[in-house]
């Protein structure tokens, strides 16, 4: 594959190496991992800082902007990062190209479905009736 002299090292690695793909995917997985370092620690410390984990406290926390916005970002980033990771596992162990693509489709659909369930629940918490 000829890219000419002007192709940058980054351009070459973004899906145009000898494997024809993977460079961009690799970079994205690193990006979501760095974001998750921050967001997962946020989630853990938030849970530890709450007075308790009763329904009322959780509902109030998740309904607030300080709970709902980072939680939305956490759900999206965690499902994306998990999907990227499982795709790599499939790439490593499934050698038939048809099966590989089929599994990628299934994993992508499962991740979007799971993420949607979590985000819908969060939306219901935020926009639903206040805690009784």
């Amino acid at each position, binding site marked *: 594959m000829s890219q000419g002299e002007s192709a940058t090292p980054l351009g070459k690695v973004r899906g145009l190496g000898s494997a024809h793909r993977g460079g961009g995917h690799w970079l994205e997985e690193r990006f979501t991992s760095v974001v998750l*370092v921050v967001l997962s620690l946020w989630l853990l410390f938030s849970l*530890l800082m709450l007075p308790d984990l009763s329904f009322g406290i959780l509902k109030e926390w998740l309904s607030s902007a300080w709970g709902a916005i980072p*939680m939305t970002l956490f759900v999206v980033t965690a499902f994306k990062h998990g999907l990227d*990771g499982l795709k790599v596992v499939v790439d490593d162990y499934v050698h038939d190209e048809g099966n590989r693509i089929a599994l990628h489709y299934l994993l992508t659909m499962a991740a979007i479905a799971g*993420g949607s369930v979590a985000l819908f629940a969060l939306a219901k918490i935020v926009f639903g009736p206040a805690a009784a």
Partner: protein
Amino acid sequence: MNSTAERPLSPHLTIWKWGPGMTVSILHRLTGGALTVAGLAVLAWWLTAVAGGEASYGEFAKLAQSPAGMIVLVGLTWAFWQHFFSGLRHLVLDTGAGFELKVNRFWAIMTLVGSLLATAITWYLLVGVGK
């Protein structure tokens, strides 16, 4: 190429010893898989339980506090910390640093020590404040 020729194989393919680096490497993959499949399922379930109101959250909390629920939650906590520390190590390795034999081995072992310690501290804090 004559495929029947008896060609010698590189010895490194057959002679090797299990080490901490390999343990941490496969644990990174296993914990990542567990966190994605079980961890994200619990996350979605937990949010759905809160969204369903007090009664549905009560059912979730009861299950979470059962022996089986606690095993899953403590297991996921350990998986999280192992993947967290191992992931930080990978980000350093991605820069090309930390491949010297002793340094590499040291930090591989430290992720194992760190994840166990962090799991213990996390649950000490969770149980300690009466949650």
